[in-house]
């Protein structure tokens, strides 16, 4: 091949079949013109792309959804009240606090870092609310603001230690685990346990506030319409830019699927008390976090830092700011989760945020499909993972099995999840999707 002569390349590639190839290329969207690209069209194309993605090891949230179905089936067989409306409403209430904390863990895992102190931070935030609201008589809003602000400050402190001194996050947050447990005990003082007033707005929100069936269904309609509209808008924008766009039929099927996925659980939940406001808050946080990591410059930077810090730095990303904001977001979610847990249990004690909270939150994020290796994951893994973890403890409690079994089962599920993560990572590398 002549290296000096340039501009001869198109003829080189197409050779004798230049004319028909060029005609074909002119009609194809700009992103589908490469002859090596395997691209399907319409509905079958979308299904084919999905199965190809799975085969290559890009599993996304498929393993956790399959796992959840299996877990629910097993518990339903063991105890027919597991999938009852009443128990599922309880499940949503139990899921919320661990899920909110797991949301923060997802963010730090995206950076390839870890926060081991979320349990202690949630406990200290709950203690702050208990002491200031109940003992000192602050207005509830002031108590909540103080507790959440403490969460933000703790994360900024971690971020500062990490970015200024390069201390590994593992060690920083291990110290935080101990230190903030101590602070929690210090704040609580010798009383040990503080009961929150049952008629307070906070407790009411966490235990007695449910959407009316009509509101729940209206919300579903709103969400489905918004989803379909944004998809359709994206489609028209892509078509206008000369790029391939999903056909309307695929969008319609996806919107219908979303409607079914939302309507069935809501119908079941409405058989009892309905959709809890607290659970709705959690779902809203998941959606907002998902949009923040996928659709904003900040989120793109988080993925970049998690994938290759040096590349991110050279691309002009303020890496330090990313670490600071992510650590702060994580501890803020932990504080919010701790407050919600305390509100649901109507008490703050020395055991708040203790033992399981930490590991359940981290396990939720990992089980949900967020990679421990950084740069890969989704906000929805907090929701799915928390549902798995909570289903296990809920189901075993229904079977009157002790926490010893719960620990062992949870450990098994966590190991399976991490193994799937490692295996799919290997498969992705083999298929060039790492």
């Amino acid at each position, binding site marked *: 091949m002549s290296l000096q002569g340039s501009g001869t390349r*198109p003829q080189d590639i197409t050779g004798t079949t230049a004319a028909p190839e060029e005609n074909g290329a002119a009609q194809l969207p700009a992103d589908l013109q*490469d002859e090596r*690209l395997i691209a399907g069209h319409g509905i079958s194309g979308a299904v084919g792309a999905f199965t190809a993605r799975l085969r290559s090891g890009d599993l996304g949230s498929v393993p956790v959804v399959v796992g959840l179905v299996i877990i629910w089936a097993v518990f339903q067989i063991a105890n027919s009240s597991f999938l009852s409306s009443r128990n599922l409403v309880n499940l949503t209430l139990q899921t919320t606090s661990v899920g909110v904390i797991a949301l923060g863990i997802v963010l730090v895992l995206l950076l390839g870092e870890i926060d081991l102190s979320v349990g202690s931070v949630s406990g200290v935030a709950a203690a702050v609310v208990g002491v200031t609201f109940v003992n000192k008589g602050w207005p509830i809003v002031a108590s909540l603001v103080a507790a959440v602000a403490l969460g933000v400050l703790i994360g900024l402190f971690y971020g500062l230690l990490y970015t200024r001194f390069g201390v590994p996050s593992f060690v920083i947050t291990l110290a935080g685990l101990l230190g903030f447990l101590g602070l929690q005990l210090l704040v609580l003082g010798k009383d040990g346990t503080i009961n929150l007033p049952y008629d307070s707005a906070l407790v009411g929100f966490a235990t007695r506030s449910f959407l009316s069936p009509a509101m729940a269904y209206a919300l579903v309609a709103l969400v489905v319409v918004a989803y379909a509209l944004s998809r359709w808008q994206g489609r028209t*924008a*892509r078509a206008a830019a000369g*790029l391939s766009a999903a056909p309307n039929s695929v969008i319609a099927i996806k919107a219908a699927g979303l409607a079914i996925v939302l309507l069935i659980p809501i119908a079941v939940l409405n058989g009892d008390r309905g959709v809890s406001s607290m659970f709705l808050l959690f779902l809203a946080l998941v959606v907002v976090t998902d949009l923040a990591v996928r659709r904003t410059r900040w989120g793109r930077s988080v993925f970049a830092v998690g*994938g290759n810090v040096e*590349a991110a730095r050279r691309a002009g990303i303020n890496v330090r700011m990313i670490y600071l904001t992510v650590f702060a977001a994580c501890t803020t979610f932990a504080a919010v989760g701790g407050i919600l847990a305390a509100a649901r249990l109507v008490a703050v004690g020395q055991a708040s945020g203790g033992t399981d909270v930490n590991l359940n939150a981290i396990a939720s994020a990992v089980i949900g499909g967020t990679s421990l290796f950084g740069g890969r994951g989704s906000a929805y893994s907090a929701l799915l993972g928390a549902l798995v973890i909570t289903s296990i403890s809920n189901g075993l409690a229904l079977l009157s099995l002790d926490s010893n079994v719960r620990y062992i089962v949870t450990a098994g599920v966590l190991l399976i999840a991490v193994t799937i993560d490692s295996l799919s990572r290997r498969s*992705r590398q083999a298929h060039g*999707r790492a």
Partner: protein
Amino acid sequence: MTVTPTPLDVGAGTVLTLQGVSKRFGAVQALKNIELDVRAGEVLALVGDNGAGKSTLVKTIAGVYTADDGSMVFDGRPVRVGSPAEAQQLGIATVFQDLALCDNLDVVANLYLGRELRKNGALDEVEMERSSWELLRQLSAKIPSVRIPVASLSGGQRQTVAIARSLLGRPKVVMLDEPTAALGVAQTAEVLNLVERLRERGLAVILISHNMADVMAVADRVAVLRLGRNNGVFVVSETRTQDIIAAITGATDNAVSERAARRSREEGPAS
């Protein structure tokens, strides 16, 4: 033989001129009195043995290091480059050997990393994808899809993405550090074609390479560094590869050549 630096041709079209640039690391004089000029629409190869100071020079131009001495004229104005970001803002883009790509992100995300296009606060994926295709087509780059993670691309394709990314900042000078190292025959040719396309776009390209075949194939001029000093600038069309290699290795002032020179002097008067 051109052992002394050729006189600087600071005429029209010169984009970047270095004068007397020196850089010390402790007791090591990494660069001494380097003179260099690059013109628009020209590929200048920077060659030299290991430790000759090529990388130091590139990093000095790119703002990674600051020169101890000497001056730099960019686009007719004397400039001081304090950081890589400043160099980029001036219009000096550098593609380092490690490419600095994020394997977990797709081609579009990598191209626009750190300068994402936005619409109403959210990422404008459609516009980024469209202009990614436009840019890659202009470079005749063979990337099958811009929505696959960079990890799945071949070495040449990754190099292409890295070079294409450097072009998004509309630079006037592009420095490529060993772009063909570790590439196969076809991929090397692809990258060299790309270098030629950069030249056609009127960019000044500084190409660092150890591969003389690549240099002779694509460069207009070759600047040789030896032990941190200029050791000649050659016009490729008028030079043989051996002469450049001699300048790189310093074969002109080693024991063999000195002896040959002495003999020819002694024989000169005798004959």
